[in-house]
């Protein structure tokens, strides 16, 4: 049979109707969901965050040259930048893996419709082009290039260099698709990254020299930038094929199972009834990729303080304190923000078991407290070489996170009715993101009060007094535990039925 070739305009019409159909489906799933209110709120926060980064990133682009030249007294900041690009991209891959959501289209129902498989995959891959993680690169590159041109770097050569960087940004974009579905590749890349860092740390081998030579060559020979683009195009088609071939329910859409092993956490039994739940939560973190990723992300935030410590001149002491506060709160804001959603799949079971609601919530609180205490101790250790002030700030932040933010997060949990599909990472089109930006953005308002308290103390007296005020507030919160708990339980009890209903939408 002869296939009629479509004209260009017919193709365009077809394409736009397809895109429209997909968008309509997603629109419906958003507005017909149980927790529309929460969704809208998180969207608002998300845009708030995007605006924040959209503002801060160009600023970084403008300042990179100046800071490197004047603060760090580096002779050629552009060379220095190229030297470190290898780490920038390494970091970018890691960030993407943990944060960037893989575009999700509910695949199975579409398989039997006249929408072609290529169309489905193209939609998923195409959507990611406009991901925050790609666009933000332009926000940085444009002002940076503008500054560089003003510092007498060659325009046409900079264009070649920019094209190269953009190609690499998109290579990490599509690499992320594969990493999310291929554990072996993930572990090998992780091992290579660690190895590079170790070899450099012990000065066995310095990759940055090669990074410098490699990336700088695209500046000296702009034509070379074709090569990464060729690679990018190849990678796109590789990913495209990979996903298209996976569109069978016994291949890519099949659940991957792992061999189960019993974990005996009986040493926890000394903590009484709380231990019963703690044991399960530990197993959850160990066995669910999503929970595991969230905890790992929390660990990243341990190092958050450094960002603001090294740029205190720009952001001021209040932001440095913000960094320390986040360092101890990583677990709380990442994992804690999804309590009780972690139990969403079996919430009815929890509601029928021989345990009172209060005890259940208390066990969740204990988990958050233990996580935050460990984070605080680790952060104290990490920042100890920055001096006593840093330790003091970390401790104050930790106390506040336990005494105030712990309750706030739990209380907010009564209203965050987002079900979490713990097993969803099991298929390649599933929602593989370990956590998303929205948790982070919900956490931001919680930071406003302690920073205000610190700033007042710092403004009128000193940083130590500021820390003291924040720490004392935290201790007060811990002392008021029973009263606060009664309020939290009340919120949970009124919300119980609608939470159960929302979780059923899993």
């Amino acid at each position, binding site marked *: 049979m002869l296939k009629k070739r479509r004209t260009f305009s017919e193709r365009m019409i077809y394409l736009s109707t397809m895109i429209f159909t997909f968008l309509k489906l997603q629109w419906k799933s958003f507005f017909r969901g149980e927790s529309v209110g929460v969704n809208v709120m998180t969207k608002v926060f998300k845009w708030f965050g995007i605006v924040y980064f959209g503002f801060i990133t160009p600023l970084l682009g403008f300042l990179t040259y100046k800071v490197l030249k004047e603060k760090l007294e580096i002779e050629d900041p552009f060379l220095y930048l190229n030297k470190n690009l290898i780490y920038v991209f390494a970091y970018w891959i890691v960030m993407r893996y943990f944060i960037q959501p893989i575009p999700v289209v509910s695949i199975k129902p579409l398989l039997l419709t006249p929408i072609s498989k290529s169309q489905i995959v193209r939609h998923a891959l195409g959507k990611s082009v406009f991901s925050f993680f790609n666009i933000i690169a332009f926000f940085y590159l444009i002002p940076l290039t503008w500054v560089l041109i003003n510092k007498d770097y060659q325009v046409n050569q900079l264009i070649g260099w920019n094209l190269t960087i953009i190609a690499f940004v998109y290579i990490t974009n599509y690499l992320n698709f594969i990493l999310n579905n291929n554990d072996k590749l993930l572990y090998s890349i992780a091992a290579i990254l660690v190895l590079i860092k170790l070899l450099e740390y012990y000065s066995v081998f310095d990759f940055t020299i090669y990074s410098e030579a490699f990336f700088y060559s695209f500046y000296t020979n702009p034509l070379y930038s074709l090569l990464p683009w060729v690679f990018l195009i190849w990678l796109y088609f590789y990913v495209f094929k990979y996903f298209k071939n996976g569109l069978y329910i016994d291949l890519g859409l099949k*659940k991957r*199972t*792992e*061999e*189960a*092993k*019993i*974990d005996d956490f009986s040493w926890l039994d000394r903590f009484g009834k709380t231990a*019963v739940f703690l*044991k*399960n939560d530990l*197993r*959850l973190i160990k*066995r*669910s990729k999503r929970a595991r990723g969230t905890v790992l992300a929390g660990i990243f935030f341990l190092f958050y303080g450094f960002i603001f410590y090294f740029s205190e001149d720009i952001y001021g002491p209040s932001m440095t304190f913000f960094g320390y506060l986040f360092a101890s709160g990583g677990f709380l804001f990442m994992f804690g923000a999804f309590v009780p959603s972690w139990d969403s*799949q*079996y*919430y*009815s*079971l929890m*509601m*029928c*078991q*021989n*345990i*009172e*609601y209060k005890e259940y919530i208390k066990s969740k609180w204990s988990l958050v407290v233990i996580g935050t205490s460990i984070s605080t101790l680790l952060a104290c250790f990490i920042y100890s070489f920055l001096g006593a002030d840093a330790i003091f700030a970390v401790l104050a932040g930790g106390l506040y996170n336990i005494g105030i933010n712990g309750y706030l997060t739990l209380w907010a949990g009564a209203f965050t009715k987002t079900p979490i599909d*713990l*097993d969803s990472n099991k298929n390649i089109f599933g929602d593989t993101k370990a956590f998303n930006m929205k948790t982070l953005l919900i956490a931001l308002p919680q930071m406003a009060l302690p920073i205000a308290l610190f700033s007042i103390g710092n403004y009128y007296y000193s940083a130590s007094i500021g820390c003291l005020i924040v720490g004392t507030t935290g201790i007060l919160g811990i002392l008021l535990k029973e009263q606060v708990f009664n309020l939290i339980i009340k919120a949970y009890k009124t919300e119980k*039925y609608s939470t*159960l209903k929302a*979780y*059923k939408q899993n």
Partner: protein
Amino acid sequence: MITLKNITKKYSKQTVLDIIALDIPVGQTFGLVGNNGAGKTTMFSCLLDLIKPTTGNVLNNGVEVASSEKWKSFTSAFLDDTFLIGYLMPEEYFYFIGELRGLKKKEVDEFINQFEDFFHGEILGGKKYLRDLSKGNQKKAGVVAALLGKPKVVILDEPFANLDPSTQIRLKQILKDLSNNNKTTILVSSHDIQDVTEVCERIVLLEKGKVIKDIVTNPKTLKELEAYFKG
């Protein structure tokens, strides 16, 4: 044991449950039948305080379920897969429920071992998490967990669905033994009227949320129910 008074559940204008009075005495094996949308699961959810009825209240052993949590210590249930914790192994799941019911690990082991036949070697000692078991095996684990710790009231929604014939027969025997030996009040719903008539001493038929028939099981019951469902 369980008393329902003036229970109604309305979603906007649609009434999905409307029970004026229903009393289930201690030790009774109670069966609930009806077509899809008759309100079986809604009724069980109300008994477990998972859904708040629009009017009326439920007493479980004298405890009002919506205002007190005391009923939780002597009541257990398995309604659907939201009663399973997917990332646990079956053993861990049994220990977890057992611990909440105040059982020691050894006691749980002893209890579980009685069900070796029922499990058919597919639940214990395997290398799978509950999420990776088949629907039928998941149900077996869930039902047995609901029997842990000698509850006075056991509520099972569609316990026979998804089970293979041998397992169905074994499960019926287990439920019969339980009601004969322990004076346990058992509430079961099913689409299979034959299963229910075999197990239950009393059968209530729901239609659009209302009690249509309330029968003490006798040799004619199956015929009577069949006549209803034929329309």
